[in-house]
């Protein structure tokens, strides 16, 4: 185990994959200069600017060229800088990358990773703060991954790079500097396996990515109030670990899903709906979501605080759920 930050975990995993497989390369703005967050620092030196290509500001073509390069057998890592900028490349992601294999009857594989740092950080306002995992989960053909710890970032990035399916890899901008223990020679982590982030038998809390921190903090405070909360970190949004969640809620009869994204149409809705369907007709369930209100992300710290899901919000929601 080594203690490293989110940035370092991703960096290490990527470098190891690039050493392992010469077909792996990176394209995106500023990546040869180390990337916006330092997540590619020094890699151009080791692998050359043929494998770390600082591109023009041409998101549609960054995404589309990544696909073209995958179609001829390379394995691109497409750096989007932020989810928000990927909105300039949605045709390429949704109409092309996600569909080529199917449309072409299995001939094509879009084996690539699209890295999209997401979420609020440093008061970046409405166009630099979005979380859109629910969108990508709705698109057939895409794998959607959202690690919440450095170790998961490393293991899931390896799995993403080795995946023959295209993977949308959502990295929590706010946690770039957060540190955690990461195993040496990290193994790829299989998609669709939730991690029990905290044991607890009375209430199920499902979360991922940036919401993991507030969720764990609230669960700890809840414990002090006598509520035993089991925290499941989904880690991957598609596929997601339906069985682990259903199994837990079957025991607890109580579920809270917490995420940073807007609640309306967020992936929490899918989790609740699936649980409600799977446990339909059994005794009454208590299911709740906690996410952002349906407002764009504001700039002012005071306003950001007003819409951010934080530990006290989670604790409140747990109290309500347990009091029901």
């Amino acid at each position: 185990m080594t203690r490293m930050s989110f940035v370092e975990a991703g960096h290490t995993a990527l470098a190891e994959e690039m050493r392992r497989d010469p077909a792996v390369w990176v394209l995106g703005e500023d990546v040869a200069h180390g990337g916006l967050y330092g997540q590619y620092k020094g890699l151009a030196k080791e692998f050359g600017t043929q494998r770390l290509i600082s591109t023009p500001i041409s998101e549609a073509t960054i995404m589309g060229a990544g696909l073209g390069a995958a179609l001829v057998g390379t394995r691109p890592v497409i750096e989007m800088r932020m989810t928000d900028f990927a909105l300039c490349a949605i045709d390429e992601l949704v109409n092309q990358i996600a569909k080529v294999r199917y449309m072409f009857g299995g001939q094509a594989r879009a084996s690539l990773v699209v890295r999209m740092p997401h979420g609020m950080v440093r008061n970046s306002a409405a166009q630099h703060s979005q979380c859109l995992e629910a969108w990508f989960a709705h698109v057939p053909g895409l794998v959607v991954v959202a690690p919440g710890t450095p170790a998961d970032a490393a293991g899931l990035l390896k799995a993403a790079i080795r995946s023959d399916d295209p993977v949308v890899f959502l990295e929590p901008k706010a946690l770039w500097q957060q540190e955690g223990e990461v195993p040496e020679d990290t193994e790829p982590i299989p998609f669709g396996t939730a991690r029990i982030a905290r044991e607890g038998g009375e209430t199920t809390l499902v979360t991922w990515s940036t919401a993991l921190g507030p969720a764990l903090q609230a669960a700890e405070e809840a414990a002090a109030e006598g509520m035993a909360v089991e925290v499941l970190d989904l880690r991957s949004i598609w596929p997601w670990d339906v069985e682990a969640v259903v199994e837990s809620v079957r025991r607890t009869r109580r579920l809270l899903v917490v995420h940073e994204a807007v609640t309306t149409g967020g992936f929490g809705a899918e989790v609740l709906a699936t649980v409600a369907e799977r446990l339909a007709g059994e005794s009454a369930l208590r299911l709740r979501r906690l996410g952002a209100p349906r407002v764009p992300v504001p700039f002012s710290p005071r306003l950001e605080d007003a819409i951010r899901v934080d530990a006290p919000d989670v604790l409140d929601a747990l109290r309500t759920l347990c009091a029901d």
Partner: protein
Amino acid sequence: MPIDPSSDTPTGPAADSAAERRAAEPVDVKRALGMYRVMCRIRAFEEHALELLKAGELPGVIHPSIGQEAVPAAVCASLEPGDYVTSTHRGHGHALAKGADPAAMMGELFGRASGACKGKGGSMHIADFSIGMLGANGIVAAGIPIAVGAAQGIKLKGEAAIVACFFGDGAVNRGPFLEGLNWAAVYRLPVLFVCEDNGFAAFTRGAATTAGYGAAARAESIGLRAESVDGNDVLELDATVREFAAEVRGGEGPRFIHAKTYRVTGHTSLDKADYRSVAEVALALARDPLKRLARELGEQGVEAEIFETIEAKERDAIQQAVEAARAAPWPEPESAFEDVQDQGAPR
């Protein structure tokens, strides 16, 4: 007065050099007949498909390229088997010219299991990766970034192949046109861009929505050597394509061909195209690329019979493709759930 279909897009100064290049060399009859064969194949394929649609035998619609066959025929005459093409919604010609099997293509149009894409793609998504045909595309201009990426992949792998990227005159007003050309030029990628200017973007004339000096001038401003050619003259096309493709293959970076032709049918098999005069279409028909080549080779002494034989053979082959497709089984319903992704069950 009908609009002259070949002149409503402004022409750069380069237009003459293509004609000169063509005039500078004797006609290679064998090569020319090869291109004639390809044109006949495309024509026969689409005429059959249109009849089948009218008869209600095919689902969906198609975008016919009748009248435009010279462009794919000439471009693919300079491609090697290991080269790649990207295509458009109007892509039958590109696939056939690159060497796709007409039976597999017809099977796809019928929606059968024998189709090139097992019935999942249809006319607008025909692909054949075994011959480097990276797929037709239902989104205007979307093939451009894919083509430049394929070229970048090729370069990264140290391979020698080139990519021919087809798109229409309507595509020159979409963002990926600029992005893709700039990208190819920045990284000196082996891409031959081919703008098939058939005069129309759906029901609106391309020229009505395209400002400035046309596709080739745009490409030149981005640093690509570019030329406008008569897209109904397969020999003129061939002369320019050969030169440009050789440059691309030689590592000199991307090249751009603006081929001016005409869409003699409607936009789709449903479109009556009543937004233009009969006279205008007649003018274009008089420039039919197949007849034109036959006439010219005839003048050089090639016997009429040869053309008839080629044409008949291609028609027969397509007729057989139709019969094979008709006889082919439907895909199993369960196959709708395959080829989506390995991870995550579709239901």
